[in-house]
């Protein structure tokens, strides 16, 4: 341990600690903008400047190692003036349209300007003028609002192992963009939206589809229905003042009815259905010498990732559609027939924690027999929260209500799809009982829960000589570890779950953003707790016990993995490769 004083407060910290962390330990807040612990400690924004006795000039606290006997000052006139000037210089090349910005009221740059008491524009100079990037269905880029903090660059490369964003050119001409200053559409971006989650400003945001949904709700000729993903219910409350992880399922369903949706369905139902198909597929592959390990296919960012970066491993993917797409396929067949409405008149909206789901929805593989897309529009959790606010619905005051049948009943196994390890746990709850014929008493598989990057477990199936070896990865850089093992023949797993986003869908690119990126993991843990609480609160916790799914097979689908099921609930994949086109030269 070393001892230093910060603003007169003595604090002891382990050697190697930076001054920023030491100040935090001393209860002193130093403003930061570019800093992201472990991933982006680059001293770029110059807002964390401090004065150190005996050292020249002002120093960035995030890159300055604390040393024994150091005397640090964080609140001198020179420090205040320098931080302020640096922020004003950032603002001098920032659009002043805060009132109509997607981040209005939730912007870190705005908060810093408020915190530092900036009340006038001192510097007028050249302004960047770049076109907006609307090239993808998921993510919108506005380089004019970029403060070059590089948090998105760090997340894309280090957390997701993708690396399609980087700094291009230098000086005033610097821009954070895909290689060649291309559009996102032109590079192997997986559209996971983790860049959106860490962007401090409105430079990166989800593509907004709320107007299309309002228009559909107004169209009396349409039967407009909605489904909500497992992870939405434990996060949307944050937009209405609830603590993270609060389960607001009932109020969310009521709010959706008030918005005018004629039926509110639960993607958890389709998650249960996925387990019937996927567990069956796994057992078939085990029995018939199919490609192993089999890998889950629920996460569209993950699917796009393997198609770009590991196309040689595509046959490892389960052919199951994701729950969102399964529900869509059924809404326009099974449900349409049940209520006697023509599929053309059904308009299905999905509310997803995910930006990549907007892309998945539009995949050519996701068009049904009638030529209609399974799902018509995808909204992120953030967009739904905005719609609820625009409609003047006071969510906290709403009573609880239940999802509609026949696509609304679900088990705890469906809800845990929202967290890393959840699909694996749900599949094993079912595979265990199907294979062994014995009841599984403790359904909670701790080994695959939690935030470690790669998790492994072995499950002995009683009454057989099978011990299932499974692995779970979340965050695509972690996924790479498992994929490289498969490529080199070193993976002896039977079944792997991969979710694109760290923590799983609960912190997908469409979820409410963290108030502090450096507390993101704490937020993830709270949402994950919410997911497991929701699981425990449900009377049924195994997908194969879902009576609504059973009825679906009995009355409509026929056999599990049978012809009709395959037709509606399974898909195929596209080899995309890493480089899509020749980059535009400046």
């Amino acid at each position, binding site marked *: 341990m070393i001892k230093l004083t910060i603003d007169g407060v003595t604090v002891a910290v382990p050697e190697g600690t930076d001054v920023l962390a030491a100040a935090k330990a001393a209860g002193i807040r130093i403003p930061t903008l570019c800093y992201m612990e472990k991933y982006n400690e680059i001293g770029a924004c110059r807002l964390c400047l401090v004065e150190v006795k005996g050292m020249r000039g002002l120093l960035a606290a995030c890159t300055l190692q604390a040393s024994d006997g150091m005397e640090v000052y964080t609140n001198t006139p020179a420090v205040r003036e320098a931080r302020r000037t640096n922020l004003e210089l950032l603002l001098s090349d920032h659009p002043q349209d805060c009132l109509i910005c997607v981040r209005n009221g939730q912007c870190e740059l705005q908060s810093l300007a408020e915190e530092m008491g900036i009340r006038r524009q001192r510097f007028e100079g050249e302004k960047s003028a770049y076109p907006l990037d609307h090239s993808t269905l998921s993510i919108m880029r506005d380089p004019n609002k970029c403060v070059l903090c590089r948090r998105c*660059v760090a997340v894309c*490369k280090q957390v997701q192992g*993708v*690396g*399609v*964003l*980087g*700094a*291009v*050119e*230098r000086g005033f001409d610097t821009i954070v963009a*895909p*290689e*060649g200053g291309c559009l996102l559409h032109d*590079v192997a971006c997986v559209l996971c939206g983790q860049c959106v989650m860490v962007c401090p400003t409105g430079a990166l945001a989800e593509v907004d589809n709320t107007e299309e949904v309002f228009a559909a709700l107004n169209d009396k000729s349409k039967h407009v229905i909605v489904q909500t993903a497992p992870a939405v219910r434990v996060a949307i409350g944050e937009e209405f003042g609830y603590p993270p992880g609060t389960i607001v399922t009932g109020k969310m369903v009521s709010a959706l009815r008030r918005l005018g949706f004629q039926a509110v369905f639960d993607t958890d139902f389709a998650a249960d259905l996925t387990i019937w198909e996927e567990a069956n597929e796994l057992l078939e592959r085990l029995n018939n010498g199919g490609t192993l390990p089999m890998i889950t296919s629920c996460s569209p960012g993950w699917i796009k990732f393997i198609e770009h970066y590991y196309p040689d491993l595509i046959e490892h993917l389960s052919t199951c559609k994701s729950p969102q797409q399964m529900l869509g396929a059924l809404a326009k067949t099974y449900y349409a027939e049940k209520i006697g409405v023509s599929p053309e008149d059904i308009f299905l909206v999905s509310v997803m924690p995910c930006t990549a789901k907007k892309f998945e929805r539009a995949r050519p593989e996701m068009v049904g027999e009638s030529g209609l897309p399974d799902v018509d529009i995808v909204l992120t959790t953030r967009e739904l929260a905005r719609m609820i606010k625009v409609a003047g619905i006071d969510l906290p005051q709403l009573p609880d209500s239940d999802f509609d049948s026949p696509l609304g009943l679900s088990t705890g196994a469906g809800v845990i799809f929202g967290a890393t390890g959840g699909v694996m746990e749900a599949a094993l709850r079912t595979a265990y009982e199907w294979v062994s014929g014995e009841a599984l008493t403790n359904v909670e598989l701790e080994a695959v829960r939690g935030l470690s990057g790669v998790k492994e477990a072995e499950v002995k199936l009683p009454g057989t000589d099978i011990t299932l070896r499974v692995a779970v990865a979340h965050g695509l850089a972690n996924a790479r570890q498992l994929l490289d093992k498969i490529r080199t023949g070193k993976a002896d797993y039977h079944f792997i779950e991969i979710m694109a986003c760290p923590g799983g869908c609960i912190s997908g690119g469409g979820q409410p953003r963290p108030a502090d990126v450096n507390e993101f993991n704490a937020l993830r843990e709270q949402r994950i707790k919410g997911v497991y609480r929701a699981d425990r609160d449900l009377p049924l916790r195994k997908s194969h016990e879902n009576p609504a799914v059973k009825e679906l097979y009995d009355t409509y689908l026929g056999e599990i993995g049978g012809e009709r099921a395959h037709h509606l609930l399974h898909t195929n994949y596209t080899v995309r490769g890493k*480089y899509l086109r*020749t*980059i535009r*030269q*400046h």
Partner: protein
Amino acid sequence: MMEAKQCQGCQQMRDPRYEQLDELIKSYQDKKGALVPLLHEAQEIFGYLPEEVQRRVADGLGIPLSEVYGVATFYSLFSLKPRGKHKIGVCLGTACYVRGAGAILAELEKQLGIRVNDTTADGKFTLEITRCIGACGLSPVMTVDEDVFGRLTPEKIKEILARY
């Protein structure tokens, strides 16, 4: 209108420079701080850094293309465009500037039919701007490769270009 397209892959297979590049990349693998020196040497082989070179460097070092592109556009030493046989540098340092370097530059652009940082269609000249080269006594000055020409007037440009 149809455009004749050549198969880049076949061209590159025949191009010994790519073999040289692949060898070079191998020698830099597992080395720290490899990117800048590797790009430097690659540019010596190709004269510039075409996209295929950047991709091979990225794949060879196991880093994203965006990172290679970022470094290639950050340093003015690197060029993403083919460069001419001869490099013309017009000094726009303070002394040259006040003594009429602007007119020299304009004359060069006119005679060569290109703008700054471009290369003539015949691949002969690339036109660039330099900061002070320390020959203020001769201002305004320009360089062609290693040759320095001083006390320039626009009228002298034609004759200088004719020597190359």
